[in-house]
């Protein structure tokens, strides 16, 4: 079957792992899908809604593991080579979705499919090999215990370097609930897709293909892509090239919003030691770009303390989570910790957030079921590294911390839930909601939990777009608009670092979408798609037991007693913002999409189809 629209194949590859090895087959993706939810995160979310039965065990065979590309992948449009990964999260029980850049997206698309959905469980540890239209399993002999990078290296040596590999590390093998899936040195990090893959006994997926779909208007795509590429290397993205996201540390600290010691405060006295500026001057070794990216934001650093030399890439989120959040000020330790998270294959934000919770438990004398000296103290770099290793192998205290801060606190009790810093089970990113009020709302209502990338509302706070004292309605509208735009970019699989290089995100994206797909896409269509993708995620969460009670912030941020030097958020104020957000979405007061809106405004053929075909 050849797709009737450009840039896509209109095909989903299904793989069911069974005791006899499993089966693979192709299913059509109706053309409306690519206008309704675009691709990437939108497509992965829609497929998850369709394929995941309500109540499916996140680590059981029925939870589908989905990889999805966008119409832009393979077109040469800068930054568009990203793959979306979705599953029911073993960390949150809600939607789990992540994006990872580089070659895997291109290779999956070359197989003649826009997406891959894996269900079932392999009879033994295996590697799924996808080559154009064929699939088969090979044993993962000699791969267990290896990092994702080492696994990819061995598989490419064995199968051929034309293969691209997604793999899990030891953390995924051992079911660490925030384990990641890695490809080409990048990670689909948040919400534990690596644990889902490990539960399916898949150590890796190796992909090779030979045919990309044609764009509807290749000349127009080339011209638009060239223009965007030129702008993508201007001043609007210089921050990412010249210093990277680590630049946030010093500025956030100056503003009192650098999360420090498990969000006890927003000022880290030793922040300069781990600032982006210091790292740039004293540890920087080079810069890399993902496939099909002109921005080149990935910075690499090297330890310089005379100890074992370690190279690592570092982003702000890794730096805050393994640095100030744990009271660690030695950049060499943070670099080693970041490298260790990559090697073990786990999300550094959740790892750091969960360790920070344990550090606070020790300070408060909470019994975590192990001798107190096995629990790291604030700022103890050696203990941080030791604990990360224990999490990756689920040894000692690591077995508890591998569950994430919410589950660990529920198990331990003793009021430790009060300082477990998560939303819906996902640990908070490095933005203090007490200082960023639109983000406070955005994090509370975000479908995948406390995620700055899905909410994006910090952009509103860190700009002059909104008066800080604005009313709830205006703030809710701004938070919803930021979330919708993020959903759109994640579904077009355009990097958010292009935001300031794009004159008007929706206008330029519509022009690109028209040229790639041949569909008559308008700015309004893309605004509607952004909102629709949010509704798809909400409907998935509703099917998995979401209630309004989950749309909240950690008690520490809402209470004055333990909130440290940041002003706490008034719970009544937050409730009012959430009410306004639901109203802005056209949802009822309990945060559920109304049937009338579903029928008339947001629902589309592909969403109706997903709901009708939903697995039970």
């Amino acid at each position, binding site marked *: 079957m050849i797709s009737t629209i450009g840039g896509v194949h209109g095909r989903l590859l299904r793989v069911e792992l069974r005791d006899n090895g499993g089966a693979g087959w192709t299913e059509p993706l109706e053309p409306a899908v690519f206008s309704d939810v675009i691709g990437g995160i939108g497509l992965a979310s829609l497929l998850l809604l369709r394929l995941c039965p309500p109540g499916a065990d996140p680590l059981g065979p029925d939870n589908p593991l989905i990889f999805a590309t966008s119409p832009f992948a393979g077109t040469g449009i800068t930054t568009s080579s990203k793959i979306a990964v979705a599953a029911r999260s073993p960390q949150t029980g809600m939607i789990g979705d992540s994006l990872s850049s580089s070659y895997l997206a291109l290779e999956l698309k070359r197989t003649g499919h826009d997406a891959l959905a894996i269900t079932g469980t392999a009879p033994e540890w295996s590697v799924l090999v996808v080559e154009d239209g064929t699939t088969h399993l090979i044993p993962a002999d000699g791969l267990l215990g290896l990092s994702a990078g080492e696994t990819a290296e061995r598989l490419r040596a064995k199968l051929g370097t034309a293969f691209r590999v997604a793999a899990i590390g030891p953390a995924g093998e051992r079911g660490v609930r925030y384990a990641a899936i890695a490809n080409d040195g990048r990670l689909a990090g948040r919400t534990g897709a690596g644990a889902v893959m490990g539960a399916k006994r898949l150590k890796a997926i190796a992909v090779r293909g030979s045919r990309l779909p044609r764009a509807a208007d290749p000349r127009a795509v080339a011209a638009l892509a060239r223009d965007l590429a030129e702008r993508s290397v201007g001043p609007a993205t*210089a921050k990412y090239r010249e210093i990277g*996201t680590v630049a946030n540390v010093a*500025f956030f600290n100056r503003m009192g919003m650098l999360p420090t010691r498990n969000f006890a405060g927003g000022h880290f006295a030793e922040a300069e030691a781990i600032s982006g500026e210091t790292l740039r001057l004293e540890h920087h070794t080079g810069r890399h770009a993902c496939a099909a990216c002109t921005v080149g934001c990935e910075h690499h650093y090297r330890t310089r303390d005379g100890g074992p030399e370690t190279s690592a890439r570092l982003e702000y989120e890794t730096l*805050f989570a393994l640095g100030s959040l744990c009271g660690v000020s030695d950049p060499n330790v943070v670099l080693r910790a970041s490298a260790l998270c990559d090697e073990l294959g786990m999300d550094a934000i959740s790892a750091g957030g969960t360790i920070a919770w344990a550090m606070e438990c020790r300070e408060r004398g909470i019994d975590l079921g192990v001798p107190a000296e096995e629990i790291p103290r604030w700022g103890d770099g050696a203990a941080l590294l030791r604990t990360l290793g224990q999490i990756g192998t689920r040894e000692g205290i690591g077995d508890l911390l591998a569950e994430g801060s919410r589950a660990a606190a529920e198990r331990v009790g003793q009021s430790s839930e009060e300082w477990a810093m998560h939303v819906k089970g996902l640990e908070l990113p490095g933005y203090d909601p007490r200082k960023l009020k639109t983000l406070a709302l955005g994090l509370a209502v975000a479908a995948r939990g406390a995620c700055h990338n899905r909410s994006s509302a910090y*952009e509103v706070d*860190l*700009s002059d777009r909104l008066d800080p004292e604005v009313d709830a309605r205006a703030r809710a509208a701004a938070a919803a608009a930021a979330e919708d735009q993020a959903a759109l970019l994640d579904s077009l699989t355009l990097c958010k670092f292009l935001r*300031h290089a794009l004159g008007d995100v929706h206008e330029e994206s519509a022009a690109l979408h028209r040229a790639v797909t041949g569909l008559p896409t308008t700015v309004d269509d893309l605004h509607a798609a952004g909102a629709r993708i949010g509704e798809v995620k909400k409907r998935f969460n509703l099917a998995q037991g979401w209630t309004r009670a989950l749309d909240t912030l950690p008690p520490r941020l809402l209470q004055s007693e333990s909130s440290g030097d940041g002003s706490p958020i008034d719970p009544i104020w937050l409730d009012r913002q959430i009410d306004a957000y639901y109203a802005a979405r056209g949802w009822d007061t309990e945060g559920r999409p109304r049937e009338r809106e579903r029928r008339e405004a947001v629902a589309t053929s592909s969403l109706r189809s997903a709901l009708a075909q939903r697995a039970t």
Partner: protein
Amino acid sequence: MTPIQRPPSSNPSPITHHPSPSVTVELFGVPRLLVGARSVAATGATLADLAMDLIRQSPALAGRVLDAITGWPLDGYSFVVDEQFTRDRNLPLPPGTSVLLVASAAGG
């Protein structure tokens, strides 16, 4: 109603020139790396005036962070005045105002 009393005109005060106050502009990220300092002193009665003086004081910022002609931040950069992001060129800068020059934060 008591009429407003004008000040006596027989002894007018001489016209005096008040120089614009000096403001310490704290630099973060790329601006700090380009200038090689954590802060620079600049003067200006308004934010636009300050930007003009900043580009004179720190030509390394021209074309990369600040517009080479006007000194105004290029896309992706911003002033933060007294903890508020602003693009108000006419914003007055009384003594003691805190001014930061930063890259727009995003992602991580």
